[in-house]
C-alpha cells in the first residue's frame, strides 16, 4: 500500500545545486582540525624544541656519537649538530612524522565517522582531497622546519659558527657550512614529500586500519633495509628515500651531486605518482557504504601495482642514463676517496700541531686498498677493506706509511679506523701546544660516489 500526495508541478528553474566550498576555506577547516589535535601540538613542540635541547646536551658530553655521520665533529663546530639531527631525521623522525600526520589525515575521518558530514558540508571530493593533502603537507613542513631550525640553533648555541670538516676531510668555512646545512635540509624535503604522498595513499587505501597509519614508517624502514643490502646501484637510486642519504654528497669537494639530484628527482616522481593514485582511489571510494572504509581490492590495482611498476621503470631509467652498474663501490674509488680524505685531514692535523703547512700536492698521498686481503672481487661493501696510505713530507726522504681498516656500507659511506704511527693515526689523541686534542686521522668518515666519476 502506497499513499502519495497530490501531484504538484515541478519547478522549471535550473537546479540550484550548491556550489562547492572554495578550497581555501576547506584548507582552513582542515588546518583548524590538524592544529586542534594534541598529538600535532605535541609534535610541533618536540620538533621545535627537541633537537636544540638534544644537540646542546650532546655537545656538553665528553663522549660523542662518532658512529653517526658528523657526530665526531660535534665538539668542533655548531654545524655538526644539525647534520647529526638530519641523519636521525631521515632514519626515524621524518618517517614517523609523515605517518602520524599524512598517514592519518584521511583515516581520522573514518575513525570519527565524519566522512558523510564532511561531504555534505563541502560537496566536492576533489576539494576535500586537495585541502587534506595541502593541510598535511603544511603541518609536515612546519615540523621539518622546526627540526632544522631547532638543531641549528642548538648547535650554534653550544659550539658556535666554526668551520666544519667535510666527508672528504676538507674544511668548510662557517658560511659554507651554513649554506650546505640548510641545503641538505631542503634536499630531504623531496623524499619527505614522497613519504607524505605514500602516507596519503595508505590513509585512503587502508582506512581506519592501523596499517594505513604505519605505511610511511614501514616503507621507510623497508627502504633503509634495502639500502643495507648489496643491491645494484640503479635499484638503490630508484628508491624514493635515497635522498635521505645522498645529501652526504654536498659535503665533499667536488660535490657528489649526481646521486643527490637523481635521488631528488626520483623522490618527486614518487610523490606525484603516489598523490595521483591516492586521488584516484579517493574519487572512487563509496562513502554511502559504512562498512567500506578503504579501497578494498583497488589497493592492489591502483596502489601497489602502479608503484611497483614505477620502481621498475625508474630503475631502468636510472641504469640507462647514469651508467650505474654493480655495487658502485670499486677499488679505485675507495683508494681515491681514502687518499683524498687522508691528505685533507693530514693538513688539518699539521695545523692543529702548529707545524709548517704543507700542500696536498707536496704530500702526494696515495692509498692502496684490498678487500679480503686481495682474494675475490675487489669491489663492494664490507668491513674487510684494508688500505695502506703513503705520503711524502717535504724535506724528508722517507715515505710515510700508515694503515686503515675500512667498514664500507652498501650506500658508499665508510668509517676508516687508523692503525699506524701514534703521532699520525695510531692514537685517538694528539699532543698540540694547547694540550691533547682528538686526532682527526685516527678515525674518519668518508663517502664513495656510487656513480661513475669519469
Amino acid at each position, binding site marked *: *500500500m*502506497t*499513499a*502519495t*500526495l497530490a501531484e*504538484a*508541478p*515541478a*519547478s522549471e*528553474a*535550473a*537546479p*540550484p*545545486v*550548491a*556550489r*562547492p*566550498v*572554495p578550497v581555501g*576555506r*576547506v584548507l*582552513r*577547516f582542515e588546518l*583548524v*582540525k590538524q592544529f*586542534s*589535535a*594534541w598529538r600535532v601540538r605535541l609534535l610541533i613542540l618536540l620538533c621545535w624544541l627537541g633537537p636544540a635541547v638534544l644537540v646542546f646536551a650532546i655537545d656538553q658530553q665528553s663522549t660523542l656519537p662518532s658512529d653517526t655521520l658528523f657526530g665526531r665533529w660535534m665538539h668542533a663546530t655548531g654545524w655538526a649538530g644539525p647534520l647529526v639531527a638530519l641523519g636521525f631525521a631521515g632514519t626515524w623522525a621524518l618517517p614517523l612524522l609523515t605517518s602520524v600526520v599524512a598517514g592519518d589525515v584521511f583515516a581520522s575521518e573514518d*575513525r*570519527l*565517522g*565524519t*566522512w*558523510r*558530514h*564532511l*561531504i*555534505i*558540508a*563541502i*560537496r*566536492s*571530493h576533489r576539494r576535500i582531497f586537495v585541502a587534506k593533502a595541502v593541510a598535511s603537507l603544511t603541518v609536515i613542513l612546519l615540523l621539518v622546519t622546526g627540526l632544522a631550525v631547532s638543531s641549528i640553533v642548538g648547535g650554534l648555541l653550544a659550539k658556535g659558527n666554526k668551520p666544519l670538516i667535510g666527508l672528504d676531510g676538507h674544511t668548510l668555512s662557517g658560511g659554507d657550512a651554513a649554506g650546505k646545512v640548510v641545503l641538505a635540509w631542503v634536499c630531504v624535503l623531496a623524499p619527505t614529500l614522497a613519504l607524505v604522498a605514500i602516507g596519503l595513499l595508505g590513509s585512503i587505501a587502508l582506512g581506519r586500519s592501523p596499517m594505513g597509519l604505519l605505511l610511511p614508517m614501514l616503507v621507510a624502514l623497508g627502504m633503509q633495509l634495502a639500502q643495507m643490502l648489496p643491491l645494484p646501484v640503479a635499484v638503490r637510486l630508484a628508491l624514493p628515500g635515497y635522498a635521505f642519504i645522498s645529501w652526504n654528497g654536498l659535503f665533499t669537494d667536488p660535490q657528489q651531486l649526481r646521486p643527490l639530484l637523481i635521488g631528488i628527482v626520483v623522490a618527486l616522481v614518487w610523490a606525484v605518482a603516489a598523490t595521483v593514485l591516492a586521488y584516484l582511489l579517493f574519487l572512487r571510494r*563509496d*562513502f*554511502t*557504504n*559504512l*562498512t567500506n572504509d578503504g579501497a578494498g581490492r583497488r589497493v592492489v590495482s591502483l596502489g601497489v601495482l602502479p608503484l611497483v611498476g614505477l620502481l621498475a621503470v625508474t630503475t631502468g631509467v636510472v641504469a640507462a642514463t647514469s651508467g650505474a652498474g654493480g655495487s658502485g663501490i670499486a677499488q679505485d674509488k675507495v683508494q681515491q676517496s681514502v687518499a683524498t680524505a687522508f691528505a685533507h685531514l693530514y693538513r688539518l692535523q699539521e695545523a692543529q700541531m702548529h707545524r709548517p703547512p704543507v700542500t696536498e700536492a707536496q704530500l702526494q698521498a696515495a692509498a692502496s686498498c684490498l678487500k679480503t686481503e686481495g682474494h675475490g672481487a675487489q669491489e663492494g661493501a664490507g668491513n674487510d677493506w684494508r688500505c695502506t696510505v703513503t705520503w711524502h713530507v717535504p724535506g724528508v726522504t722517507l715515505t710515510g706509511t700508515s694503515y686503515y681498516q675500512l667498514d664500507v656500507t652498501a650506500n658508499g659511506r665508510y668509517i676508516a679506523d687508523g692503525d699506524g704511527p701514534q703521532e699520525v693515526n695510531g692514537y685517538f689523541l694528539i699532543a698540540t701546544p694547547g694540550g691533547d686534542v682528538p686526532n682527526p686521522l685516527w678515525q674518519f668518515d668518508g663517502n664513495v660516489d656510487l656513480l661513475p666519476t669519469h
Partner: protein
Amino acid sequence: MENAVAVRGLGITKTFGDIVALDQVDLNVARGQIHGLVGPNGAGKTTLLGLLLGLAVADSGSLEILGDPVGRALAAPDGVSGFVDGPGLYPTLTAKQNLAALAGLRPRGARIADIDQVLEEVGLATVADDKVRGFSLGMRQRLGLAAALLTRPKLLVLDEPANGLDPSGKKQVHGVLNRLVADGATVILSSHRMDDLEALCSEVTILATGRVVFSGPLNKLSAEDRELDYRLRTSDPEAARAVARETPGVEVIEGSDAVARGDDVLVVRAQVAALDALVAKVVRADIAVRELAPVVSPLEAAFLALTEQPPELQPEQQAEGQPEQQAEGQPERERQAEQQPELQPEPAHNPEHHPEHNPQEAGR
C-alpha cells in the same frame, strides 16, 4: 509560486553490488511538515536519506528536492541539511569551534544562523566552550542538530535524531523541529522510536526490504481497524477483569509482561469501539480508571504488521538500542558513547511515565 512538494521521488532504485537497497521507491513529502521514515534494520532508510543529502545518486528513478531535479552529480541541492548515521563532529574542537568551522565552509554571502543562538536553541549554550570529546551521545546529537540548523535549511534530513537523548533533551529537540516546521521548513527524520514519530510526524513512510509498504498520514495508519492491546489500571483489578470478560469484543490477555509489572494492571485486546464500551461499563460499576494506554502504539503495531518482523527483532530488542547504523557498521566511538550517560541531570524517574510515553519500553 513555490512548489508545495519538498521531495518527490518516483521509482527510485539503488543497489550496492548484489544488494538492492531501494527498490522502486516512491516518496512524496509536502513542504512544511515533519515526515517520518520507519523501517526495520536494513530496510533502506539510511540509503534513502543519503540520496536526499547528495551522498549518493539513485541508479534509476527520478528525484526532485525543493522543486529541482537531482542530477547524477554527488551534490545536495542548496537548502538541504542534516546528517545520517550520527552527526559528524570533531572531538578535539569545542562545540562552538565545531560550528564555527562549519560556518566557515559556507560560501560568502550564504545565510548562516548565529552560532550562539543555535546552541541556545538545542540547549548547549552552557557547554559551548567544552570539547566535544566529553559530550554524551545525546549532547552530540543536539550539537549535530545545531550544525544542521546553522545553514537555515529548507529541508532538514535527520537520521535517528533522538538517539541517546534524555527526556529533557528530547523535548528540546522536538521543540526545535516544531519551530522549524512552523517557519516553513520541511523535516524528514528516521527513527526507531515510535513515540517520537507519533509526537512529531504528520505523515510517515514505512520501508521494508527496500520497498515502501506504507506512506501517508499517521492518523490513517492509526485508524486502521486493528485490535490493539491496552493496559488498563483500575482501583479494583478483579472487578474490572470480570467486567472485561463480559464485554463483547474485549479479550483479557493473561500472563502479559505488562501485567507482571503491577498487580492492579489488566491487559485487554480490543478495537476502539469495544474499548469505549468497556470503559463505560467499568465506570458504571464504580471502578476508578487510573490509566488506559496502548501497550504497543498504533504506529508500532502497524509497523510490526507491515514489516513482518521475525521473532528475533521484536520490539523488546529494538527498544534496547539496536539502531540501524549499528547493524551497518556503526563506529566504535558511537557505540561507546551510547553507553555514556547524558551529562545533563536526569529528571526524577517516574516508573509509570515511560510505559505511557514509550510503548516500546512498555513491551519489555
